[in-house]
Each structure stands twice: as structure tokens, then as C-alpha cells.
């Protein structure tokens, strides 16, 4: 029997900023199709963990691997080595990151935001990339807005463009950093529906949030962090959350 590697595997990852240990010896495995809600108060280390997992930040110790391939640091004969930029860049499209601030490129239209990285990074032809972008924008209900520049779009529409941009790279894993924070409260329902749709398509996802209610609505597994450590890791679907009392004592009750 062949062993299917985990989509994402984090082993004993640590990251300090000066004296502050932002992420402290964290290990985490995410298997295909899982939707993980990564929660914690601000300063708990969840965003730092996300930035280390996506290679935006260099961690001090530990390993990350994506579908079994090492990402960031590798251990060769017991000696740790930082991967070269090219080694890391080759794996980056596998991680579809949706930033808290979205970071759409304002000088490009919505559809061009989705086409450009496919052409530049994956070397797809313009036709192929355009077809993919049109298909994604249609799926996300944005086909009428494809030739608009980002500032002409609403917050929710921008977010969907950012999601489409990440999805176009055929990622193994989608990561969302605080997907509800930049939106009006009434749009949260829309995001929940969208994330559930993605989950129904079988997309593996990590959703970083500090809103417990939102996290339980969209994810089937909750990982809670405090002071750089994982303090809770468990299923939500079917499980009675109230019985998972390790969380009591923090303010997520």
C-alpha cells in the first residue's frame, strides 16, 4: 500500500522575534480534504505560523513539507540547511494564500490579476490561462466584473478575485488569513458559503481566524493556539464543542 503524504506537515517549528518566541515547537499534520480552523487571540502566533508555513518568514527550527516535499529547511545528514530561493519558489504555487489585506494588484484588471501569475510562474499559454480565469470567475459569480480594476470592486468581490488568483495556480492547499476581518459583518455569511463550496469541491484549507463562531461554521477541525503553542486540536463536526473543555479558561467559550 502506498502512503499518501500529508498535504502539509509541520514538525517542531519554532520562530522567535528577538526574545519573543512567537511560534514554539509546533507540529501539525493536515491531510487531504481537511478544513482546519486555526484560531487564537492576536499575538498567539497563528499568523506567524501561517507566514512560516508559506515561506514568507524564515523559521528558526523545525521543518515544513508540502505533499511530502521539504519546504524552507531541509535536514541533510543531520545538518539543517536553508533551501535556495529557487527550490522554495518551485513549491510556492502549491500553497494558495489569500492575504488578510488581499493584496490584489491595483494596476491590473480582475481577470489579469488571475491570468498573470499563471503565465509568468506556471508558463501557461495566455489562452489556457484566460480560459482558467474565466472559468474561476464564473464559478465565483464574478464574470461580469472581469475587466474591472480592483478599486471598482466591492470588498466581497475583491476577496473572490484574490481567492480565484490563488485557485488558478492549482494549489494543494488553500490558506486564508483572517478572511472575515476585511469585510462588512453582513458579508460573513457569504464567505462561509464560499468556503463551504470550496470544501465540497474537496479543497484542503487552513483558515486563520480569531472568530470562534466563524471557525466552527466552516471547518471540520479546530486548532487553537496560545502563546506560540497549540493548546487544542480536535474535530468540530459531530463533536460537541462544549465538551472540549481544554478551551475553557481562554476567552473562546
Amino acid at each position, binding site marked *: 500500500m502506498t502512503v499518501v503524504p500529508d498535504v502539509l506537515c509541520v514538525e517542531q517549528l519554532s520562530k522567535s522575534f528577538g526574545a519573543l518566541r512567537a511560534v514554539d515547537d509546533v507540529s501539525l499534520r493536515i491531510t487531504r480534504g481537511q478544513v482546519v480552523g486555526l484560531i487564537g487571540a492576536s499575538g498567539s502566533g497563528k499568523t506567524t505560523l501561517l507566514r512560516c508555513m*508559506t515561506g*514568507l518568514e524564515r523559521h528558526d527550527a523545525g521543518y515544513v513539507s508540502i505533499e511530502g516535499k521539504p519546504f524552507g529547511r531541509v535536514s541533510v545528514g543531520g545538518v539543517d540547511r536553508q533551501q535556495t*530561493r*529557487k527550490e522554495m*519558489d*518551485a513549491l*510556492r*504555487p502549491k*500553497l494558495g*494564500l489569500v*492575504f488578510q*489585506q488581499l*493584496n*490584489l*494588484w*491595483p*494596476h491590473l*484588471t480582475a481577470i489579469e490579476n488571475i491570468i*498573470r*501569475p499563471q503565465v*509568468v*510562474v*506556471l508558463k501557461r499559454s495566455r489562452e489556457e490561462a484566460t480560459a482558467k480565469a474565466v472559468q474561476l470567475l464564473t464559478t465565483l459569480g464574478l464574470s461580469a466584473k472581469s475587466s*474591472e*480594476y480592483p*478599486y*471598482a470592486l466591492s470588498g466581497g468581490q475583491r476577496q473572490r478575485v484574490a481567492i480565484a*488568483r*490563488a485557485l488558478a*495556480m492549482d494549489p494543494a492547499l488553500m490558506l486564508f488569513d483572517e478572511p472575515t476581518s476585511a469585510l462588512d459583518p453582513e458579508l460573513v455569511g457569504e464567505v462561509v458559503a464560499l468556503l463551504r463550496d470550496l470544501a465540497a469541491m474537496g479543497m484542503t484549507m487552513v483558515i486563520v481566524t480569531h472568530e470562534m463562531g466563524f471557525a466552527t461554521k466552516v471547518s471540520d477541525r479546530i486548532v487553537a493556539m496560545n502563546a506560540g503553542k497549540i493548546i487544542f486540536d480536535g474535530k468540530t463536526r459531530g463533536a460537541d464543542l462544549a465538551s472540549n473543555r481544554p478551551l475553557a479558561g481562554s476567552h473562546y467559550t
Partner: protein
Amino acid sequence: MSKFDPWLIVEYAPHLALGAWRTIYIVVAAFLLGYAFGIVLALLSFLPGRLPRTLLTIYSVCLRSIPFIIALFIIYYGLPFFGVRLPTIYVAIVSLAVYKSAYYAEAIRGAIVALPRGQFESARAVGMSPAQAFRHVIAPQILRGLIPPSTNLTLMLIKESSVLSSIAVAELTYQGLIMQGNTYAALEVFTAVSAVYWALCSMTAWLAHRLEARSNAPQAAAIQRNRIAARYLSFERVGK
């Protein structure tokens, strides 16, 4: 005191034209060279670690703290010490380019720093290399904002090129000094020289203005297409 004699200028017009041409040649070459140098310096300053940034600061503080004429003398009289003998006009171009590159580099660096960091990060996150991120995401966004400061610096460059007369480069000011020596008609001569500098600077400013209007056009058109944006934001109409 003799009378103001405009005919003198007509008589010496070929000299003025020659000087103007030489000035244009030097300014264009120094601009291209200096700007290219400025881009390279600005990008190098973003290499990891504190050292690259510090080196750029030292470079620009040193150059910006001395008058151009002194920098020119150092390069002009200094190069032969190192066995480098170049035609004077190349020394002139290189000196201007090096001197201005410090200013251009700081302007370019400032424009990049002013962009939200997330722009670079989102380009890197999809797998673009730093060079690709610069080419597709950073450069197109800073270009528009760079036009006004670059224009100012280039207008200064045009005027600073007059200093080259002190190492006998036969540009506009030098021709003016010769004309003055021949005619003793300083007022007529330098009025004419001023007029030529004014024309050069106006043309440069006009070109820059056109460039800026053109770079605004696509987004302005998109805004006008959007009724809500048009209602809430009052954007200056950019004519074609």
C-alpha cells in the same frame, strides 16, 4: 554703456545651436546612464541584511553633500591618477550620471518603499521570483509616481550641465562664455543662453506631463466606466 543689441544673437546663433545640441547630447546620455545606475543601486539596496541599505545611504549622502562642481573636479582630475584617460565629454557625461544617480536611486527606493509590502509578498507567494515580482507587480505601480520626482531631478540635471563649462566641454554655457569673450555683450549673450535653457527645460517638463497623462489613462477610463466610483470620487479627467 552701449545699447542692447539683439542682432548679435542672430549673428552668433550657430554657436548657440551647437552648444544647445551638445547640451542635449550630454543631458540625454547622462540621464539614461544615471537613471540606469539609480535603478541598479535602488534594487541592490533591497538585498537582505542592513549592509546594502547602509552602503546606498553612504553613497548618496556623500554625493549629495558636495557641490556638483567639486564632484566634477574630483573625477576629472582624479581619473588620470588611476591611469584612466577619457575624452572630456565622456568624463562630463559619467560625472553627471554618477552625481545624479544618487538622487535617482533615493527617489526610486522611496517609491518602492511607499508601496504596501503585501504587493511584493503576494507576487512572491504565487511563486514569482523577486525579478518577476519587480517586473510585473512593483515596476508598473511605481512608474507613475516616479514621473514627478524624476522630472524635477532631470530639470536640475539640465541646469547642472552648465557647470561642465568649467572643464571646457563646449556645451551651451561654454559657448555663451566664448561669445561673451568675443563681444563683451554679456547681457545679450546670457539672455539668449537663458532662453535656450528655458526651452530645453520646458520641453522636458512637457514631455513628462504627456507621459504622466498617458500612464493615467487606462485607470481613468476604468473609473469613468464605473458609475458608483464616478459618483463618489471626483477624478480629474485625463484627456487623450
